[in-house]
């Protein structure tokens, strides 16, 4: 188990190195090695998670360490899927280091998952957790693309085409990728929230408890809903969409961590350490 996690971290680090070298030297081989290393790391990670799942019989989200690792896995997976569809290679420079960061932080946390409760095995819970995490990963990608968009837009507008102009793809590609990330993320988050509500009903007997976590999840959902609605009606694209997807992700991060650390809520055990 532990060896798989370490191997995963190693592969993610190597992949990040590959992508950073690609950014600087623009050699196709660097990007390719970064990509395949990430795939290897992803498979390795999957093996580790699968082993843990079978061994304990629970979805590995019982403490912060496990939750973070599952998130990193989701981020890597969503990136690989998008890379396959959009060929937006340069995004790896954002994603690979991000997975490394999450994994390294997670591996430093104590590893003693609390006594498992039977509720971790409900279908609705697993559905809720996986949809929300994959949705979050898509939003993380949207944020990364948004940052790249702003950088590239700045280099075009300021007319000083420096380091990034050559290396980043066209604004159009960045914009449409970001939009797809948002759509995918929004769909999954919506499904995840519905799963969570159904689950809440089955446990607490109520759909909505006005718990801080629920409230903030609702706010996050609304921000992205507004983004999509504005794009469809008034055509909020490009710069505004990029900025909003970064703000949205900041709120999402608060919902993910901030609520658990600063406020009280019934999701506390997911981020206990």
């Amino acid at each position, binding site marked *: 188990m532990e060896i798989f996690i370490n191997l995963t971290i190693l592969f993610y680090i190597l992949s990040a190195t590959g992508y950073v070298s690609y950014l600087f030297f623009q050699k196709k081989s660097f990007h390719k090695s970064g990509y395949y290393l990430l795939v290897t790391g992803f498979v390795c990670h999957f093996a580790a998670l699968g082993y843990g799942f079978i061994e304990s019989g629970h979805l590995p989200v019982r403490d912060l360490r496990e939750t973070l690792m599952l998130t990193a896995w989701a981020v890597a997976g969503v990136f690989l899927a998008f890379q396959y569809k959009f060929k937006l290679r340069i995004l790896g420079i954002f994603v690979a280091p991000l997975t490394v960061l999450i994994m390294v932080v997670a591996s430093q946390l104590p590893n003693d998952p609390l006594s498992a409760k039977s509720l971790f095995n409900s279908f609705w819970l697993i559905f809720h957790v996986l949809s929300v995490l994959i949705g979050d990963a898509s939003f993380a990608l949207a944020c990364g693309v948004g940052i790249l968009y702003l950088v*590239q837009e700045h280099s*075009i*507008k300021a*007319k000083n*085409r420096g380091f990034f*102009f050559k290396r980043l*793809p*066209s*604004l*159009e*590609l960045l914009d449409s990728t970001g939009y797809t990330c948002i759509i995918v993320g929004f769909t999954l988050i919506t499904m995840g929230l519905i799963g969570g509500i159904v689950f809440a009903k089955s446990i607490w007997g109520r759909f909505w408890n006005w718990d801080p976590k629920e409230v903030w999840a609702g706010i996050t959902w609304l921000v992205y809903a507004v983004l999509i609605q504005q794009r469809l009606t*008034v*055509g*909020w*694209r*490009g*710069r*505004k969409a990029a900025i909003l997807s970064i703000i949205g992700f900041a709120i999402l991060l608060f919902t993910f961590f901030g609520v658990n650390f600063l406020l009280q809520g019934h999701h506390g055990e997911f981020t206990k350490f």
Partner: protein
Amino acid sequence: MKEVKNKKNFALPEIVLIGLNHKTASVELRECIAFSEEEIATTLEALHDHRVIREVLLFSTCNRVEVLLISDNRSEAVETTKRLISEYKTVPIDSFEEALYIHVGDEAIRHIFRVVSSLDSMMVGEPQILGQIKEAYCAATENKTSGVILNRLLHRAFFVAKRVRTETGIGDHAVSISYAAIELGRKIFGTLDEKKVLLIGAGEMAELAMEHLLRNRVGEIFVSNRTFEKGLELARRFNGQAIRFEEIENCLQRVDIVISSTGSPDFILTRDQVKKVNRKRRNCPIFFIDIAVPRDIDPKINRLTNTYVYDIDDLKGVIDENIEDRNREAVKGERIVDENVIQFRHWYKNLDVVSTIVALRSKLDDIARVETKKTLQSLNHLSETDCEAIRRMTNAFIKKILHDPTLFLKSHTKHGPKTICLDVTRKLFKLDE
């Protein structure tokens, strides 16, 4: 005495390059000297018929006229070439002699490699030169004025050019205004396919940009001009639609790229106009290319979201940066050229008759020595005299076998030693390894 004479005849011919280019000659002079296709053919023949010239290639572009010769007598070949140019182009030798440069041997090889790789071009990295020299080489082969040395040299040069292009970034970035605009357009729109374009005003540079855009398969085209007739004419040329000057604002709703190049002293498009339109365009990106001086498009428009304005100075800035990049890459190109000059020199030196015969002889000697040693080891009963007899016999074999080939290689045709046969011999016996 006989030795000396032999040596002289078998000496390798020299590679000589005579020419003038944009660095040494003015445009007027280059125009006078430039050769047309037919002239090249006749000049090639005339040069090739000359006694001291074995192979010849001539290329003439707007920036250079160069003659590449393989000759046994450098000074005579150079004089002949000058005289022929002067006769064919009816210009006195004095008028162009000063602009000529003459490279011999390694320098000539290096020069031709640099020219073909576009390292010597006025605009470093421009891609046309390779095609132009390929054509010139075709002309030389058609007229049968190129032989084994030029063939090898030119093929090597094309190889070098390809390596320089793929291994360095010498041809990477746009170095003309219109290309730079297209490159920027691609960074904004990804692809220019089906993008709608509005051309305001006319002018050489705007039309050039338009042609580049057409080549990139843009979609609908609108043309607007103060005088509607002129607009109609341009619209016909680009297969577009002419609109009146007053309709421009309306048209902005539908287009993605605007090229402006009018003689107007004021801005044609102001920030407020574009801002109003942007809402109707649902914020789709729009790219203004302002080629006019004074400017047509208010630079403040650049500050609006999803709106990009590049004027002529901005585009020039882009080009300057790109040229710097190319020059930096050219250094890598020079290294590739140097490597190949050394390799070519090695092959060329070995074309010498004497060295080929010596190499052939030593190869056979080596084989004979190894084989006799092997045989004699297993024949212990033979006396030392017997062994000696066998060794003598093998040596005699080699001598007899080599006798005719040596004579053949040493004999020469009207154009001197048989370079082709030497080359074949070297390949046949793998003497270059």
